[in-house]
């Protein structure tokens, strides 16, 4: 039994659809993926088995990533060469993660989810404190030069083309393997791990890191989604409304609302996320 709930199928689908729209909306407001919000609601509130929650979430992750990437790529913000290079590692990681998910128990998944969620909440706090600031020119890097990973983007706020150089691509590759494994294991995009890997380790501007991360998430998620499908963990009755709902919510969020900049409101969300991660952790420990 994937759902421990006494509702009619129609009510269930309606509730899942509404919750997913909310998760997509909130996710796009906070710059988090929908999965991070969706999975706790599906498991803790709607009592969906965590495996089916992960299976449903991973497909919605592809939807939001592809939708956002379509805009980022058209605007030339995502660095497609860096993305393709790093996808070698994220896809390998995603395969590892999805295979591991078949072996580890539900409680371990709850525990890990709680830990990643707490980390993501704290990472959001960090982003809140140090926004902007002058960037240092990274030292030259032979591998990045050979592969031609450097790029430039059009900055709306300054109205000019900003050129940037990439370094330590191999460190990035290692970090991306970890991000891919987490993504495959938990059914989230794990943008909170991908963005710092590019921004802090490889020296990409934060805007480019965010856009490129979004672009990569779809391919990473597709690799693990294939495995979840074959295992029978993608239940159309749960994944269908989740996929439609999260996409609608994320689209509405990006279209009609500006990103939340208010510090205090963000702090409130960080607190909520930390509380939810505590709930997930304790479910992992006590079962």
């Amino acid at each position, binding site marked *: *039994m*994937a*759902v421990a709930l006494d509702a*009619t*199928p*129609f009510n*269930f*689908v309606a509730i899942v659809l509404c919750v997913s729209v909310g998760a997509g909306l909130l*996710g*796009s407001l906070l710059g988090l993926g929908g999965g991070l919000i969706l999975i706790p609601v599906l498991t803790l509130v709607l009592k969906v088995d965590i495996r*089916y929650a992960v299976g449903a979430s991973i497909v919605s992750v*592809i*939807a939001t*990533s*592809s*939708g*956002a990437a*379509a*805009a980022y790529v*058209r*605007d*030339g*913000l995502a*660095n*497609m*060469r860096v993305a*393709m*290079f790093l*996808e*070698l590692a994220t*896809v*390998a990681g995603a*395969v590892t993660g*999805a*295979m591991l998910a078949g072996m580890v128990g539900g409680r371990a998944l709850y525990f890990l989810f709680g830990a990643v969620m707490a980390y993501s909440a704290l990472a959001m706090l960090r982003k809140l404190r140090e926004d902007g600031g002058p960037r240092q020119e990274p030292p030259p890097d032979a591998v990045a030069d*050979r592969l031609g990973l450097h*790029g*430039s983007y*059009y900055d709306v706020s300054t109205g000019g*083309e900003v050129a940037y150089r990439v370094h330590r691509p191999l460190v990035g590759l290692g970090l991306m393997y970890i991000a891919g494994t987490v993504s495959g294991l938990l059914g989230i995009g794990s943008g909170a791990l991908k963005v710092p890997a590019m921004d802090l380790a490889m020296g990409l501007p934060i*805007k480019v890191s965010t856009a490129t991360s979004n672009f990569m998430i779809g*391919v990473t*998620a*597709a*690799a*693990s989604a*294939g*495995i979840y*499908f074959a*295992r*029978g963990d*993608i*239940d*159309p009755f*749960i*994944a*269908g409304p989740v*996929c439609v709902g999260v996409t609608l919510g994320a*689209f509405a969020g990006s279209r009609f609302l500006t*990103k939340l900049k208010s510090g205090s409101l963000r702090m409130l969300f960080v607190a909520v996320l930390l509380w939810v991660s505590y709930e997930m952790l304790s479910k992992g420990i006590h079962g």
Partner: protein
Amino acid sequence: MTEPAEPPSPPETTTSAAVARDEVVPLTPELLISQLLRGGVLLSLSLVTCGMVMTFFRHPDYFSSPDALQRLTAPDSVPHRLPDVFEGVMAVRGQSFVMAGLLVMITVPVLRVALSLGIFRAQKDRAFAAITTGVLALLLLAFLLGGVE
């Protein structure tokens, strides 16, 4: 998922984008990939939505019976082999339409990688053609591994 404001000119991330900028032809590799992603997502969501509507049209008891939910979400009720999904679509089963839509969604990024491979090859970028082939091979490996399990 933010839509950044429209820049006045497409910035060059690849060489052919820079070339295309001087011509009137707006079909850059970026635009091609962008269209593929958008089209794929729209197709998938329409299939999923149609499937959901069909399901409730064909089963009026889904509006009233709580037992049906347990049956629907029982682990073995899920079609998880391609022939099963195909058969269900042919039989106009709503849930198979939803599943087909979800499968289209999973395929979109794979097609994006395949399209990128074509673009890198057309640009005679051998290093990136090799990297892209590697990514594509890993993706196919993932689907095969999943099937074996």
